[in-house]
């Protein structure tokens, strides 16, 4: 699915591990195209945030990077809650799962989730996220494409 908006502007990062979250943010900052990077250590707050956006008829983040194993609410539960958001609000959000677990059962479960765009393994690499953004927003260029080095 290709977004009708041709430029991604906001991204949401969800990971219960502080270090992993910070690292992810650093990489996203280096992509250098997002106006807004929101990060959550607790997926419950992330869901509340998204629900609040829906209630105010605001745009949801263009991309959501989601960890799988988290206490209180894991990635799968997050997806269940996410699906309760009205389709017209959530359909432009692309979900990427980021995990350190190589568990085949989890991978299988993720493949069955149509709303997940891709399953990525940690750590998030700059090249990986760049090529995914290119794929999701084919008409958008900035420097992106093969972009290397600092801007």
């Amino acid at each position, binding site marked *: 699915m290709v977004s009708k908006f041709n430029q991604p502007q906001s991204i949401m990062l969800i990971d219960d*591990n502080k*270090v*992993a979250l910070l*690292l*992810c943010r*650093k*990489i996203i900052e*280096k992509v250098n195209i997002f106006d807004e990077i929101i990060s959550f250590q607790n997926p419950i707050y992330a869901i509340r945030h998204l629900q609040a956006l829906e209630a105010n008829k605001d745009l949801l983040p263009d991309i959501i990077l989601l960890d799988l*194993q988290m206490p209180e609410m894991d990635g799968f539960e997050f997806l269940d809650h996410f699906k309760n958001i009205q389709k017209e609000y959530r359909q432009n959000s692309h979900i990427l799962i980021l995990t*350190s*677990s*190589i*568990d*085949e059962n989890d991978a299988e479960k993720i493949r069955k989730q149509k709303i997940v765009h891709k399953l990525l*393994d*940690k*750590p*998030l*690499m*700059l090249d*990986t996220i760049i090529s995914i953004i290119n794929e999701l927003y084919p008409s958008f260029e900035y420097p992106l494409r093969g972009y290397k080095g600092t801007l």
Partner: protein
Amino acid sequence: MIKMPSIKVLYVDDEPYNLESFRAMFRRQYEIFTASSAMEAYDILEKTEVHVIVSDQKMPDITGVEFFKSLKEKYPDPLRILVTGFVDVQVLADAINHGDIYHYITKPWNDLDLKQSIANAYEAYAARASLKEKVISLQRSNDELNRFVYSISHELRAPLTSAIGIINLIKLEDLYHSSGSYWELMETCIKDLDYYINNILDYYKNSRFEAERENIDFQALVDRLISIHKKSDLDVKFFTDIVQENTFFGDKFRTELIFSNLISNAIRYQNPEETDKKVDVLIRVNAKEALINIVDNGVGIPKEIHDKIFNQFFRGQSEKGTGLGLFILKEALSKLNGSITVDSLPKAGSRFIVRLPNNV
């Protein structure tokens, strides 16, 4: 004297006199319950966990064999002894063959025979119960082990992937050579640890799970694995040449494990002085088999040790690796009925040739 656990015996007979004499006979040894009809017996079974049931065959509403049959579903555990005055061999043979009764005693019974029969029945009951308990406890420890491995794979790898991520950022920010070779050494340690953890998990899974039959798309599988492994050395170039003429059916997990090991080895044993580090993955799939060549231009393997590299804990001189990779690979191959050969020259590179049968 140690008090024995009380053995509960239910006796079913429509003759009150028989019930009385049975009780008189065994009350000292067992806890006796009596019922003059099947209905009464069901009531008792509902409330009490009985170990042995003795029933008369000839009763007005239901025969002993029928009564026992009716219990099998709901009360499979108690051992069933039939007491019968006449012998309808066919009925008896059927009942025994279907496992409806454990033993039968002719009427009028011989006290000693019946006593022995009940004792044997209880022994069998106790043996079954203890076996059942063991199976449950084994099941429990299996589940625990699975959960343990799952949490290891996550809890141990999560901080490791973060550490790899940090090194990755250090590289992106051009700080990698800012402290001599310290970052490089740190990276090596982290990657060794990561590799070791993955090896252990693979070994565990390979030894535990049965091979499955799944549709395998080699191009997709290889592309995915290369994208994972090339992170560990971005200098290595990969070339794939995959022709899959037929659908291939095999065990995905083990096939991945085999490729993972060969690809990560091809990266690991690169020659540091080589400027054009490369790995070729050539695959031909037909209805019979998948023929896989993985070729690198790395350090190579001396002829003398070609046979040894598949042994557990054998490591090449380079002191890299856990000595488990190729061993696990060979174990996985043997579960898939595949084969592997190696062709290698020191300083020139290695070629691993794997054949996997197509289980169409």
